């Protein structure tokens, strides 16, 4: 077996050093009922070539985004990732190292995390950021829990523009922890409606911009209303490229910002692994979840970085920890950071402008299709359209014609009564010819 270096001679010699006559003697503490003498009922080992064949056969049964016209967004976006990013994250020293618990021999990872935190803080317009969480949705759940600790209140109000899967993720954890949630009905352009739902028990309001329908909102008023009532404003962003063009949540008064960072540096990967961005006001940092990297000096006075404020964390505080998180999304954070370094401010702004331009072109093309209505009043790179009939059926029909047309809202929330709503996105990877083709086929399908 190619991954196992011990030879039969090694094994025999080592058993001799240990002073036992067989490997079974080392498993003597296993109760008799659970001792298996035979291998389990699964295939035996395979060579690299055979494994490649089997994996390739499975991969071939999927229609990848790059194969043709593709318009899915709704929390995961297809962007071009520079070759440099994937090359560097496969370097042994980044790929095969552990959490940097020994800072003297992990300065590579630690400096990257420090740079990542600085980039995320700048991008979101917040004072501080952590070293990443699993993804945007779990970051949202952590943010709500944090708000209950900061305010010592027990209720979260969520707008009808928050991604329904994020809402479910938050509710799953919140309800287990005894935190009440008030989720407003799905609405394309009504983030402000959360203001009326704030009461004396409200720990936080959660809004999203651009929201799940693509609508961009200035949340300043919501921030003021929440804070006046002693609650925190949590702003969710699922498309971080938008922050190259749009006002940051920090500028608009957010207390906590959570975002899905996948768009920068990370592929679609069928939903994971992604990278949760988490940023907040500095005064709340000791209630924040996840790892934090901080600057310090070594014994010779040289600048260095360490994981810090770990008295918040599970390995020190156990049942009093701010979160149970241990493993985070380090390598995806590295990918994010490399891509962001390549882009720089100039590149990010350009990338965002191109995304917006492509989406407008898509909007113009679809608006011209009889029977289609653009529902999103202000959008960045995705928007909602109303189609005749059920969007889910339309998407299947179009898939049969080689077009991945977008995400039917019913896939996210089947109970909202929005079965005729389709979410479509465009990015810098979208070809003009694909937009034209999509509009043409859509018109034909609708006319049938």
């Amino acid at each position: 077996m190619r991954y196992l270096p011990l030879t039969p001679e090694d094994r025999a010699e080592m058993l001799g050093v240990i002073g036992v006559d067989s490997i079974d003697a080392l498993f003597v503490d296993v109760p008799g009922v659970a001792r298996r003498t035979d291998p389990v009922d699964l295939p035996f080992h395979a060579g690299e070539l055979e494994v490649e064949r089997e994996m390739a056969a499975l991969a071939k049964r999927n229609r990848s985004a790059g194969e043709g016209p593709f318009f899915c967004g709704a929390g995961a976006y297809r962007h071009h990732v520079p070759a440099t990013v994937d090359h560097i994250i496969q370097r042994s020293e980044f790929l095969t190292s552990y959490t940097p618990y020994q800072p003297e021999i992990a300065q590579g990872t630690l400096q990257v995390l420090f740079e990542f935190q600085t980039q995320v803080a700048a991008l979101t317009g917040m004072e501080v950021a952590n070293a990443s969480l699993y993804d945007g949705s779990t970051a949202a759940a952590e943010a709500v829990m944090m708000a209950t600790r900061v305010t010592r209140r027990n209720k979260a109000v969520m707008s009808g523009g928050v991604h329904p899967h994020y809402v479910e993720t938050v509710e799953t954890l919140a309800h287990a922890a005894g935190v009440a949630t008030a989720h407003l009905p799905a609405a394309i352009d009504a983030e402000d409606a959360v203001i009326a739902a704030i009461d004396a028990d409200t720990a936080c309001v959660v809004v999203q911009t651009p929201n799940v329908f693509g609508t961009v909102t200035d949340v300043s008023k919501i921030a003021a209303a929440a804070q006046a009532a002693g609650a925190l404003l949590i702003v969710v962003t699922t498309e971080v490229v938008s922050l190259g063009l749009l006002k940051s949540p920090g500028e608009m008064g957010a207390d906590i910002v959570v975002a899905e960072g996948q768009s920068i540096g990370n592929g679609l990967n069928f939903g994971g692994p992604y990278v949760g961005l988490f940023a907040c006001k500095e005064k709340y940092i000791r209630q924040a979840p996840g790892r934090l990297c901080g600057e310090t000096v070594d014994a010779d006075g040289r600048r260095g970085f360490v994981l810090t404020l770990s008295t918040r964390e599970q390995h020190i505080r156990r049942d009093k920890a701010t979160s149970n998180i241990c493993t985070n999304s380090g390598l995806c954070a590295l990918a994010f950071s490399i891509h962001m370094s390549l882009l720089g401010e100039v590149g990010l702004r350009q990338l965002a402008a191109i995304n917006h331009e492509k989406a407008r072109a898509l909007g113009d093309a679809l608006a011209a299709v009889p029977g289609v209505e653009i529902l999103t009043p202000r959008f960045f790179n995705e928007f909602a359209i109303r189609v005749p009939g059920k969007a889910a059926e339309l998407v299947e029909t179009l898939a049969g014609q080689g077009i991945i047309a977008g995400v039917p809202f019913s896939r996210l929330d089947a109970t909202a009564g929005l079965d005729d709503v389709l979410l479509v996105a465009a990015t810098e990877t979208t070809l003009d010819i694909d937009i034209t083709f999509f509009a043409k086929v859509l018109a034909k399908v609708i006319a049938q």
Partner: protein
Amino acid sequence: MSMNTVGRPTRPESAANDTAHATLTGARGLLQDEALIFELGGWDKTGVDLPEASAPSDALDGLLRTAPIGLPGLSEPETVRHYVRLSQKNHAIDLALYPLGSCTMKHNPRLNEKMARLPGFSDIHPLQPQSTVQGALQLMDRLAHWLKTLTGMPAVALTPKAGAHGEMCGMLAIRSAHEAAGQGHRKTVLAPTSAHGTNPATAAFVGYTVVEIAQTADGRVDMADLESKLGDHVAAIMVTNPNTCGLFERDIVEIARLTHAAGAYFYCDGANFNAIVGRVRPGDLGVDAMHINLHKTFSTPHGGGGPGAGPVVLSEALAPFAPTPWLVHGEDGFALVEHAGEAGAETAFGRMSAFHGQMGMYTRAYAYMLSHGADGLRQVAEDAVLNANYLKARLSGAMSPAFPEGPCMHEALFDDSWLEGTGVTTLDFAKAMIDEGFHPMTMYFPLVVHGAMLIEPTETESKQELDRFVAALLALAEAAKAGDVERFKGAPFHAPLRRLDETQAARKPRLKWKPVAAAPLAAE
């Protein structure tokens, strides 16, 4: 060299700069000092070539950024150099043994990386039509089959994103099962003092109170104490097996029986599954839920702290409460039931995250499983246990094993009694290991062993590498006992940096780079 009370030299004086051989630039050989991107990059520089775009839509008036963001850019060569230089300051499993107990730092096969990057896996969207991702769903189904077969459990929830996330998933299933059975009053979770910190943190996070179970002198659950603490108020026990002392819980079947008799569930922390994979099925031990760290047992890379994946196998009693999405075999192939309460997932407790979990880890883990097969995985467990016992045997003459009697499983645990009187602590010893070219073992964990040193070699180390490691540790042990304290107190001397001031970092947190240079921190 003079030292302060925490073992730091009181003045700068190290192998790097205390001799006539100090360099003029501060660099040491090929090891470069590397500035931060904020000190290197340009505010108007970029490493990408993008076309110009038109001005944004008027609809966004008032919503656009006006002020600079503060993100520097680098050209491609500068970017590559920056990160490659940084990478050289890291230790990695590809460089040498990485004996972190409880972390299973094994070789990460490169085939897995290649497979995960096939566009059919890496370039598919979680919400594109299910008819267009049948291969991905089939892979998830096969992975599930392997995990269920290896554990002897009837169901698995794939989506948790890491071990602790898996714990949360298992505990939420347990909570839902109790509530469905009118047992919602059970609010206590029992866990041994030796448990991973994530166990009590998870239990508390989902609303339970944690009560500790004592441990016996031979490193196992104290059955009398467990029995006395079980009762109608207990929702579950959380026990790691093999446990965090690297020992198999001999009474595990009895632990499960007592737990079930008290109406509680048995959550097993599967972080140490590598020791038993292919040889012992947790289902045969009476486990109700157990997470499997794909980034440990199934070799997906740790990546400097993540991403991981923590699928949870579930018993018949808990399976109905598994979170969505559920993978089902429909008439037209595989399908996902995505929302709790929908037909087919009526009793699901909710959702762990936005999409379907860590597909990128599923592909890697599945490629690893296919490579090893049932026979190879069994050999994995045997070699992991053999390597650990070999280290224990070779080191026991010089160091004090915490539990000398009987074999250990995949990790060898030592206490610090053998360092008594030397003036050297576990921390000092670990830092001196760095100078000898090895990553330290897990230190001061589990908490039940004084000055604990938990060594997990894994099965992917050759005998030669183990012998090299043993020789280094024996030489260090001899130096410690011979009174060569300076070698330890100031260590490491040969790492990219000397010991870092963690106290100062926590007292005055600097969590990001700031444009106006703050006064440099001084060594204290």
